[in-house]
């Protein structure tokens, strides 16, 4: 694919990538950074993209891997971890401390519940249900077999249902 063509095709997915980044970081400046970094990497390594494969899945894969790179950095900080599950909404890209007022608030129980899911559950729901990706593409983004994706979707929904029930009782 020619460079121009590649850039144009990649930019068509900007809104979807930004939406995904917002749900991962919950913080607009961090989502900006994450998406910018994603495109920088995609453009830099565009020669590695195999024409004919799914560009959208490739971009989402880069975004998620970039997110996790910084996320794992934070994960080592024990103060942010509880029961082995890191506080996912702690900022990982730069300067905002966790009490930062820059974070976007959840408006609905569904958003609140989604935020409380571990990253791999949240991601699988965002990709499969919100973005409507095929299971094969989701598997590519997550670098795992399709069977694992199916089971994660099932477990993610179970967990989400439980959280939503809790909110209803409250």
């Amino acid at each position: 694919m020619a460079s121009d063509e590649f850039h144009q095709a990649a930019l068509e997915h900007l809104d979807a990538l930004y939406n995904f980044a917002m749900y991962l970081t919950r913080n607009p400046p961090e989502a900006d950074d994450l998406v910018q970094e994603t495109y920088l990497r995609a453009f830099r390594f565009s020669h590695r993209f195999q024409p004919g494969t799914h560009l959208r899945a490739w971009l989402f894969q880069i975004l998620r891997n970039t997110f996790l790179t910084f996320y794992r950095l934070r994960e080592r900080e024990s103060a942010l971890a509880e029961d082995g599950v890191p506080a996912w909404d702690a900022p990982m890209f730069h300067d905002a401390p966790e009490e930062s007022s820059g974070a976007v608030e959840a408006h609905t129980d569904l958003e609140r519940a989604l935020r409380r899911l571990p990253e791999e559950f949240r991601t699988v729901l965002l990709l499969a249900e919100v973005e409507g990706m095929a299971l094969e593409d989701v598997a590519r983004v997550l670098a795992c077999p399709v069977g694992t994706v199916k089971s994660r979707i099932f477990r993610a929904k179970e967990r989400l249902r439980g959280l939503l029930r809790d909110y209803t009782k409250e």
Partner: protein
Amino acid sequence: MSNHSPESDDALGARLRTELRRYAAPAYLRGSIGQTAEPPRARPSWLAPTLAAAATALVLVLASIPFLPRILPADPTERLVRSVVAEHTRALMWGARRPEVVPTALPWLTQESGIGLRKFFVGDDRLVFVGAEPVYLEGRRGMALYYRDGDGHLVNYTVLPWPGLPLPESRRVQIENRWRPALMNDSGFSAWVWRQGDLACFIVSDMVSESDLERFKDYFVRLRLATEPVPAN
């Protein structure tokens, strides 16, 4: 499991698709990524002889560089750092124009600078608070707080409203797995630069050696933890 109840897999999937807000990429992000994607223009045929002539001219220009006025950097962050450093140099040579002792001066300072302080670093055993004053840099009102350390280094904390100030990725430094400010240099001064919401924040000092930078990092942590600027309404 039945897929017909209100909380069935299908219903939950539909809720996720319809009830979750969708965030569209802001225009400035689209613009900046679009610029990154722009391919370099093809080199016109007349460029080679022109370049040769330019190279000759360059030799002459190089000889006159000491006499040329300083050129402003094109990068907005570098330009801004230069302005903050210039302001720091002024304070270093002439002192603050109207140093005020916070908190008594806070309402006045907030009114003049357009920046409020939810909390601020009042100084400790390493850094002594010297004063605060409104500043006007690159056409924007902001606020500067001045501190002095035990060795006499003046440390300047400046805040300006600057939404989306780009930070050069290559300059960013991980501090305590918590922050990633950019470390910039200009005219023999070091500057930490970072974004806090819609504000651009800077800490400037003349600490440039390796051992000084460790201390400068420590000053960043002290100031960053204890100071929370917000745009005043």
